[in-house]
């Protein structure tokens, strides 16, 4: 069995790189997408064990991506962690209603994210 596959969808290049570095170091097979559209293309082309997505992105936002994931029979059970900025509780609530498994609010602790990722991947494995 290969490494657990994680898709990170984030439009900030620097953030994307940091998450990629960190998750690779934690021993995952990390795929990246720089916007929601690219993220959807990857989701439609292969199966992921976990999706981490930002909220505010060009073309397709994080919530729309989440909604698409949940409405797709193939991907509806994939855990989704959403990255959001502090102080937008409405969006957090909307995300949970759409079926997000977890929220990580920026600024966040990378070790905390690692623990959350581990938790969801354990459930999957």
């Amino acid at each position, binding site marked *: 069995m290969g490494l657990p596959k994680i898709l990170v969808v984030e439009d900030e*290049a620097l953030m994307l*790189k*940091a998450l990629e570095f960190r998750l690779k170091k934690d021993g995952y097979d990390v795929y990246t997408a720089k916007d929601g559209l690219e993220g959807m293309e990857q989701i439609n082309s292969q199966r992921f064990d976990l999706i981490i997505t930002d909220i505010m992105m060009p073309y397709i936002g994080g919530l729309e991506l989440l909604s698409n994931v949940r409405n797709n029979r193939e991907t509806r059970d994939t855990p989704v962690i959403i990255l959001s900025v502090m102080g937008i509780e409405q969006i957090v609530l909307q995300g949970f209603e759409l079926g997000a498994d977890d929220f990580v609010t*920026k*600024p*966040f*602790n990378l070790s905390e994210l690692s623990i959350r990722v581990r938790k969801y991947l354990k459930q999957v494995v």
Partner: protein
Amino acid sequence: MKDFILHIWDYLREIFVVRLPSFPIAIRCALFLIVFFTTAIAELYIFIAVQRRFLYYRLQRDTIWKNKFSNILGNMIVYGENETNEAIVQHFLPRFERMSIHRSSVRRILVQQLLEYRESFSGNTSQVLRDIYLGLNLDQYPKKKLRSRLAKDKAAAIRELSLMQVPGLVDLISAYADKSVDVANVDAYSALLRLDKVNPLGVLNTIQQPLSDWGQLMLFDAIIKTPGINIPAFSTWLASANDSIVLLCLKLIAHFQQHEAIPMLLNLLAHQNVEVRVWAVRVLGKLEDPLCEGELVTIYPNESLIVKSEILGALGKIASGEQIDFLRSCTTAPEFEIRNKARELLKAQEKSGTMLSNNTVDSNGVLHHALNGF
């Protein structure tokens, strides 16, 4: 092709050199203008082409530096979890020092990335980023910019220094707060909120200048997002002589749902500033306390249209069902906006079932009449 160009050249030479003296003055002037503007347009095109080339090279160069820095920062973020911050900084600082950070263009890229990461991460990562920033003495440049005459530069410097929590910054920034109404002012207030560990909200007592909507938004953002601030009762500032502070605190009361502020909010319904009254009513609506409804209905007849409309909005949010008769009376108000809003509220309350419990058979008839067409 060569013959054609030579032919054109000969033709132009004949007109502008050989035959020019024999032309009337008007033709000569026209020819001079043609030469002048043709040359100007050619120069403009050359200038744009050169600029584009420079921009292209600069972008290429910036991309290389961005990649170099992001790789080092990425490695730094995942470097030995069991290492102390000091050890991580000692390991990575020489790498940054070897880069050409004495060049402002390169330094700008590094600072931008450090700030971006610092905004996104907390915990050890954030601390290491700050230590790297201070270890490279990058704080000296924004400190110099604080003396700039340009408010934009000053504001950027304050933002950078506050985000990096440079030591001794509170005293430095206090000097810039409330000196004049400019963008740096609001950034100075926000920075004080983030940096002053003893009394972060003391800044609300010192602000004398009226804050713009944007300024209020910046402070609101700083207050709700700064970790570690003990949120006080914002009703303390509702008696402030500075109306913009009162407005800011009203928004904060609504955000933090401070119900204990309701008596003070009711006092504000008699405030002379209509904007304060509008916000006081709006916040009472957001707090959804049915005990306020009576007071709102009492002040309604003597209020301006904007406050009346806000009162209806607040009653719609509270929706206790006690003010159905009042809302019905509003459906025949002379102002279209009021009539419309009252009908919408009645419709919403009917849908939610609030009215059913408080309605008589007679009043149902009036209601159906009021909702006719909705």
